[in-house]
C-alpha cells in the first residue's frame, strides 16, 4: 500500500522526489509533459503548493531545461514552449508593473499555481485510490458462488374454443377449391350446322340469322338456351360461309346478319 501523505503538500503517487538529483536530469522521458515536470520540481521545494514561490519554481524549470540542453538531451517542443513562457512570466513578475497588462503576471502565476495544485491533488488521489483495499487483491468475493438462476416457465393458455376454432380455420383454409359449373342445356355446334344448312336449302331469299333459331316456346323459351342457340348458329353460319355453302352480309356495324345459300 502506498502511504498517502497529507492532501495538499503535492506529494503522492510514486515518490520520485527521493531520486538523486543527477537522475533527474536524465529522466526527461519520465515526465508526462511540462506540467508534470513543473509539479515534480514544485515537490522538491517541499512546501505547500499554495505557498510555493512561483519565481523559484520558474528558476528550477529553466535551470533544468538548460542542463538538459547542455547534456544534448532532445527536448520535446512543449518543454521549450513552457520554458519560453515561464521566462516571460518571470520577467513580467520582476519588472515594474504595467497596469495595462491583462492578465497581470500575478494572475498568470496564480493560475499556474492553481493548476499545479489540481494536478497534485489528482495525483495524490490516484495514489490513495490505488492503495485502497481492492476486491480481488486484498478483499475477496465468494470464490465459488452457486449462482442464482431464474427459470422462466411459461404457463401456456389456450381455451377449448380457441382449439376448435383453429381447427375449423385450418379445414376452411385447406379445403380443395372446386369450381362447380352446373350442366345446362345448350345447342351444340353440330346441331346448329345441320339446322342452318337444312333451312338455307329451302330458303328463297336473304334470311336474318335470328330466324334460324328454334321458336321461343317450351324448352327454347329459356333465354340462356336461346343465347346458346344464337351463338352456335352464328358459328354454324361462319362455317357454312367458309366451306362456300353460304354467304353472309351485314349492312352496318352491329346490324342484323343475313344469310343465303350459294347456288351451286
Amino acid at each position: 500500500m502506498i502511504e498517502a501523505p497529507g492532501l495538499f503538500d503535492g506529494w503522492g503517487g510514486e515518490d520520485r522526489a527521493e531520486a538523486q538529483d543527477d537522475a533527474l536530469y536524465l529522466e526527461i522521458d519520465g515526465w508526462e509533459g511540462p506540467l508534470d515536470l513543473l509539479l515534480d520540481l514544485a515537490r522538491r521545494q517541499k512546501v505547500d503548493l499554495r505557498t510555493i514561490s512561483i519565481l523559484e519554481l520558474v528558476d528550477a524549470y529553466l535551470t533544468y531545461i538548460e542542463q538538459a540542453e547542455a547534456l544534448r538531451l532532445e527536448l520535446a517542443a512543449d518543454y521549450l514552449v513552457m520554458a519560453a513562457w515561464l521566462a516571460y512570466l518571470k520577467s513580467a513578475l520582476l519588472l515594474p508593473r504595467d497596469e495595462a497588462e491583462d492578465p497581470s503576471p500575478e494572475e498568470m502565476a496564480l493560475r499556474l499555481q492553481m493548476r499545479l495544485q489540481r494536478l497534485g491533488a489528482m495525483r495524490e488521489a490516484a495514489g490513495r485510490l490505488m492503495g485502497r483495499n481492492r476486491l480481488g487483491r486484498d478483499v475477496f468475493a465468494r470464490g465459488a458462488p452457486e449462482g442464482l438462476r431464474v427459470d422462466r416457465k411459461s404457463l401456456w393458455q389456450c381455451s377449448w374454443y380457441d382449439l376448435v376454432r383453429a381447427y375449423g380455420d385450418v379445414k376452411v383454409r385447406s379445403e380443395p377449391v372446386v369450381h362447380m359449373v352446373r350442366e345446362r342445356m345448350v345447342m351444340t355446334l353440330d346441331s346448329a350446322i345441320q339446322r342452318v344448312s337444312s333451312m338455307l336449302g329451302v330458303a328463297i331469299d336473304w334470311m336474318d340469322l335470328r330466324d334460324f333459331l328454334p321458336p321461343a316456346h317450351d324448352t327454347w323459351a329459356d333465354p340462356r338456351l336461346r343465347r346458346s342457340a344464337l351463338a352456335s348458329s352464328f358459328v354454324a353460319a361462319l362455317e357454312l360461309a367458309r366451306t362456300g355453302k353460304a354467304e353472309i352480309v351485314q349492312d352496318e356495324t352491329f346490324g342484323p346478319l343475313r344469310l343465303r345459300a350459294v347456288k351451286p
Partner: protein
Amino acid sequence: MIAAEAPDDLVRAVEATLFAAEEPMSAEQIALHLGFGEKGAGQVRPAIAELARHYEGRGILLVERGKRWHFETAPDLAHLLRREKEELRRLSRAATEVLAIVAYHEPVSRAEIEAIRGVQTAKGTLDVLMEAGWVRVAGRREVPGRPVIYATTLVFLDHFGLGTLRELPGIDELRAAGLLDPVDEDMIEAVLGPANVRKTDEPESDPD
C-alpha cells in the same frame, strides 16, 4: 456464545479463506494457506468446527465433503438458487392450429401437419406444445424416413376438459356451430357450392 459474537482472529481467517476459496479446502490446505505450515491442520480444526457450529441454522452452512470443507446454501433454501417464475402466455395462433391438428388427426407426423395446415410448421411450435405438456412424441411411423409422430397427452385432455378425443366436435358439428363460417368471402364461396353456382350463372353481375 460470546465466541459466536466475536470470533477470534483464527476463526475469522478460516472463515474468510473458505469463503474466498474457489474449491473446497482440507484442514491441511487451510493451514498451509494461513501460514501454519504442513502440520498446522490440528491448529485450524477447532476453528473449522467452531465455524461449522456458528453457521448451523443459518442460510448457508459450512459442510465437509470428503475431508474438504466449503460453504454451501442450506438445503432447505436450495430452491432459491433455481427459482422458477411462471408466466401466463397465450398460445400463438400457429401453435393452436398445430395443437388442433394433432388432436384431430393423432398420431400425426410433422409433414402431415404441414400438409393439413398448408404452411410449414416451425420446429419451435411443436416444442412449445411439448413444453406445455399437451403434445408428446408417440413413436415413429414405419414408413421410409421413419418420421416422428405426435399425439396429445392426458394433460391435454385435462386442460381442455375432455374425457376422450372423441368428444371434440366433428366437421359437421363445427359447421353447425358456425365455426366454419366465413373468414374470407372468396374462400367461403369456393366451398359453399350453391351460392357460387348462382353467381357463375350470372357472370355479368359479378363485379369482379
